[in-house]
């Protein structure tokens, strides 16, 4: 599954950052390394880009780039962490 397909509010763990060139380097520099937990926060009004949370901060990127990021959804922790951030 890719980050672009992760439903809003769900957590996942990054498996691999694909793509290439400067943009891939930037994503890695910003902490999207394998094993990192990310959550999709919301989608922009016009359907793209998306807003994600990781390492205690927020980042926006287009679905185009998100499609290159392979993730593994964290089914169990998703609901729990989701609730925690809502209170």
């Amino acid at each position, binding site marked *: 599954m890719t980050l672009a397909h992760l439903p809003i509010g769900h957590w996942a763990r990054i498996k691999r950052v694909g793509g290439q060139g400067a943009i891939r380097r930037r994503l890695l520099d910003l902490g999207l390394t394998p094993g990192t937990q990310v959550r999709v926060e919301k989608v922009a*009004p016009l359907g793209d880009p998306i807003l994600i949370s990781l*390492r205690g*901060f927020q980042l*926006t990127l287009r679905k185009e780039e998100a499609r290159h990021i392979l993730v593994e959804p964290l089914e169990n922790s998703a609901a729990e962490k989701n609730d925690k951030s809502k209170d």
Partner: protein
Amino acid sequence: MTIHIGLIGNPSAGLTTLFNQMTGGLQHNGYFSTSKVATKEGPVKGHKGVNVIEFPGTYSLSAYTLDDITTRDILLHKRPDVLINILDATNLERNLYLTLQLMELEIPMVLAFNMMDEVRKNNIHIDLPAISEILTVPVIPISASKNRGIHDLIHIALETAKKKLLPHKLDFCSGHVHTAIHAILHLIEEDARKEGLPVRFAATKVVEGDQGIIDHLKLHTPEMNIIDHIIKDMEHHLGTDREAAMADMRYEFIQDLREKTVQAQSTETLEHKRSVKIDRILTHRIFAIPIFLAIMFLVFILTFQVIGAWLSDWLALGIDWFIGEVGTYMAVNGSSPALQALVVDGVLTGIGSVLSFLPIIAVLFFFLSILEDSGYIPRVAFVMDKLLRKLGLSGRSIVPMLIGFGCSVPAVMATRSLPSKRDRQLTMALIPFMSCSAKLPIYGIFTAAFFNEHEGLIMMAIYLTGILVAIVCALIFKVTIYRGDPVPFVMVIPSYRVPAMKSVGLRMWENVKGFIKKAFTVILIATIIIWFLQSFDFGLNMVDSSEDSILATLGRAAAPIFAPLGFGEWRAATALITGLTAKEAVVSTMAVLTTAGSTGSLTGMLGEIFTPISAFSFMLFCLLYMPCVATLAAIRRELGGMHYALLVVLFQTTVAWIVSFLFYQIFSQF
């Protein structure tokens, strides 16, 4: 010998706030001010011979934006005496990533852990001595916005500079990455020393595959082959590629460090949670765009109709009174009529007509600063990205564009944060269509003269026309010159913060100061020249009517170009030409040319030259025609060539002519 302190850190870690606290807002040109990077340099308060240089915010020393590249070059080659790396202590993970790279530069450095007040409020405990010990770098807790810890920070930074204390912990690596870095380190040590590059830094960049550094090292084929072999070996063992391996290695070290030294109850701070709540409304799926438009509308109304306009009216009354008093005084004391005319009709009228707009400009910059410092603008980029992509741009371009409503020069400089050259060029070509504050006096005078009852409406029409023309031009560019794939859009969205009034005030003051300075230099000189040219003929005899003056002759030569636009009149043509020095000069020139030798006011006299239709056509032309010389110089500097600046001149003036032509020809039919 001046000591240079380099100030560097992530965007929104508090760079500018700390710079302002250290310098009191003073800045000047110095050793590090190059035209290529948006550094600020200023003297440190209370420390003679110490300068601080603020680098643009950056996340990493790998080359992504133009800002990143130039910052890295300056760090490598000009080498400040000491670095203050400022970190947002509420978000250490991402902030320390840059720190680990800076430590490899072999420059003495200290870490300023900023926002310690928020850290305490969040019940986060950070073991500063332990971090300092592990990283072998002094760590100083500060709160830049509250002016706490700055004194200690400067003191320790200077101490570190004097003793040339380098960070000596450089091994963040383990396992296969470690092996690779060390193998390459030995291999390239001599080449790096020869090229003046820090060895450890060069080695990690070679492992990362940074082409800029690899080229710089001028490695020979046998060396390159060995390096390739080492890298392949490392990639094989780790099951990942070189870039991911290095980023992973640094973040693993940081996570380990954090586990040892930071205790927090929640991974998300109160500020973060507050931001999420605010964003439920401000970046809401349906409300986000209407809210953005409403905010811009509100800023607009407050600036042009409520606060700014009200203050400007009062200032204009004061200026008129002052000019009257000076005139009476000179008349009573028997000054020569020529001198009276120069001072009263020339200089004072010219500068006064421009200066009365000062409050509007101050209010506009006040709002722009608040929007920027609160963290709202990145949200606008997020919300508007898709629309901008349709124009061949990205959400990032919204930042320089919004700054463009203040002044095109800083807006053009802000394009350095865009990651591609194509985006930079396109954004720069469109920025001047975002009507800058210097054009305000022009609209102000003309709406007062012709559209007094619909001031707000006409202003809005002008601004929207500028945006509309920018959109149309962008669409044309997209299918002609700037074809190609959309560039990626990745942007950190910082937590909202209450803007520090001190920095908002400083920004306002800087711009107001610039405006006043311009009035008394460029505008003053232009006014005197205009007055001279309209008072004498080619035989240097003083003329009775400016109709016979040098200027009238020149203006008449240019006037036919503007005839199809409805203002083929020598005074209008002259004003447009002087407007190239600075857009306010259009108004001061008009003031000198129309009121000289008459008793009528400027607004009254405009009625003799323009009809409402031709007046609006003139405003449109002013909105769109070539930018002022300062902006052109900035564009030339950014793109490194006069030909591009000339293209901008040609392009915009043509667009302006066409739009005004169409407007005038269509509307004068009714």
